């Protein structure tokens, strides 16, 4: 038992180290500076709150006064930001300020004082660390829901998925919202296991805190309500505390500039519905990173398939995953202002839990066939990207006949379940595919440098 715990801890530490190294590599150059000016704007909000006592940032809201200004950090106006002046607005209340405070404070402590000084080389560093912490929190939550082996698979996939790695380098509020939401869910799950009123209160505090990162963080409160269920007393405490913490955004806005805060609030309610009526189809079939860049990654699709698999299960943990995914889907569709890749980030931990669970069923519970087919999706995507130019004939041969052989093996195991040899071979095949998929994740990430990024579309 003790040996098992130590092995799990060791595997988790290795996963976290891999997660950090992959996120850190090329962190300041991929995605390119300026591909999302929100990264700068978030930091400017924090920096201006510290230095001016008033948030200043880029606003795209209709009817809000803005001051066109040329600001050229990392020389973005010469590369990725065509069209010139940025629509600077103050006081800026488009979103809650928590991510801005975090990145602005880091920029300030690093000696950056003016907007032009802000460099991605500085401000992405804490986000990379936050991304690594998210992997650890995801392991914790998944271990509580599905046990340590499944949690290890989930965290390894989340640590190495190219889409997640690159997305978690960006100074976007969603990258702050996710770990806080996970923390709230961990505390809520712990209260299910042992009755502790303080745990519910802390869970409520963190659920409220997610709203201070972005209004879509309300999902943490909604999912919390469904997870608590019909325990009236806990529900009242959870709602009162979380909503009161979330309400701090309103107090902050009213305290700084009541009139402007109300104007922004009204403008926000009439935002353009930019994600379109085909938003769900688009969500299932495409993997976006920024507003224009797509990075094909098979793992989210496996996650959606895993969600269907989980929906058929009747246990509590599967229900929790469904609650989180469905709650965020509702928020995503409700808000739906634009089809930016980072709006999808809060889906990812739960899609990866679903994907990891789906796959681990093949390793631990003899559902080899579905796991193998699921693994072939990201593995195939990674291999096609790795051998984009040099299509190795031998690899194609292995792929064609390997999959044929694999299917025969797995189907034989399925119709002859009592045969131990077929069972062991099938399990080994799934483990081998999993290792290959993770390895190709890492190899694909090695390929994604600035030059390659220009070719990604």
């Amino acid at each position, binding site marked *: 038992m003790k040996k098992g715990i130590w092995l799990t801890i060791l595997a988790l530490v290795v996963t976290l180290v891999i997660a950090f190294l992959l996120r850190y590599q090329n962190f300041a150059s991929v995605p390119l500076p300026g591909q999302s000016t929100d990264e700068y704007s978030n930091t400017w909000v924090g*920096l*201006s709150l510290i*230095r*001016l*006592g*008033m948030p*200043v940032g880029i606003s795209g809201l209709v009817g809000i006064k803005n001051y*066109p*200004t*040329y*600001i*050229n*950090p990392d*020389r973005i*106006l*010469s*590369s*990725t*930001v*065509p*069209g*010139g*002046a940025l629509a*600077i607005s*103050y006081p800026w209340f488009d979103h809650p300020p928590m991510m801005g405070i975090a990145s602005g404070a880091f920029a300030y402590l690093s000696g950056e*004082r*003016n*907007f*032009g*000084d802000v*460099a991605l080389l500085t401000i992405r560093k804490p986000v990379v660390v936050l991304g690594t912490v998210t992997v650890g929190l995801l392991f914790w939550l998944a271990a509580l829901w599905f046990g340590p082996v499944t949690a290890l698979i989930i965290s390894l996939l989340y640590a190495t998925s190219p889409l997640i790695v690159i997305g978690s380098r960006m100074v976007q509020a969603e990258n702050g919202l996710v770990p806080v939401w996970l923390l709230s869910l961990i505390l809520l799950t712990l209260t299910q296991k042992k009755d502790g*009123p303080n745990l519910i*209160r802390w869970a409520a505090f963190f659920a409220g805190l997610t709203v201070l990162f972005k209004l879509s963080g309300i999902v943490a409160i909604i999912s919390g309500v469904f997870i608590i269920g019909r325990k009236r007393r806990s529900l*009242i*405490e959870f709602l*009162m*505390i979380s909503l*009161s913490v979330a309400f*701090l955004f309103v*107090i*902050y806005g009213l*305290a*700084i500039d009541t009139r402007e805060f109300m104007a922004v609030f009204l403008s926000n309610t009439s935002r353009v519905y930019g994600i379109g009526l085909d938003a769900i189809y688009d969500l299932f079939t495409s993997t976006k990173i920024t507003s224009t860049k797509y990075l094909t990654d098979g793992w989210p699709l496996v996650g959606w398939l895993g969600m269907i698999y989980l929906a058929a299960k009747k246990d509590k943990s599967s229900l929790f995953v469904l609650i989180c995914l469905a709650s965020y889907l509702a928020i995503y569709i409700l808000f739906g202002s634009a089809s930016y890749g980072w709006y999808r980030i809060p889906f990812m931990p739960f899609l990866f839990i679903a994907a990891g669970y789906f796959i681990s069923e093949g390793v631990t519970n003899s559902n080899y066939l579905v796991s193998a087919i699921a693994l072939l999706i990201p593995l195939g995507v990674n291999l096609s990207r790795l051998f984009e130019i040099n299509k190795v004939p031998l690899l194609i041969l292995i792929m064609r006949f390997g999959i044929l052989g694999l299917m025969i093996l797995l189907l034989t195991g399925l119709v002859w379940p009592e045969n131990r040899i077929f069972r062991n071979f099938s399990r080994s095949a799934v483990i081998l595919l999993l290792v290959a998929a993770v390895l190709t994740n890492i190899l694909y990430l090695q390929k994604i440098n600035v030059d390659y990024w220009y070719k990604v579309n």
Partner: protein
Amino acid sequence: MGFLKKYFVGYFIFVALFVVFLRWHKARVYSDVLLTQMLIFPSQSKDVTEDPCFYNIVGEPSTPGQYLKLSIDCRDKRANFTLDFRAIREKTVGGAIKELFRINGVTLDPAKLKCIMEGRSVTLADEVAAKNSLECRI
């Protein structure tokens, strides 16, 4: 419910202090001068150049009728810029050139440029209007 009572007493005290702090901090540190400095101060880490044609500004502002065309002849090469007219603080030839130099980190003295606008020669103090085309050479 005893906990919630205590919680909200603490919460309202916190909110009161929070509001006081936000207002006090803004009143103490905010100034238009500092805001302008933060917005337009050139980065300390940015590479600077004497060559006004070295860096470009990509694309065109999507502001119909609110632009200023500026081209600079740097002997061996030529650079063309379209600036958002609303973002030029000082609406003069010198103001437009200074704004361009600030954006691109150009240290050249604008007085070293000779400019013509709409076919006539102009000085740095001459006013510019939206949709004007300014052609300068070193």
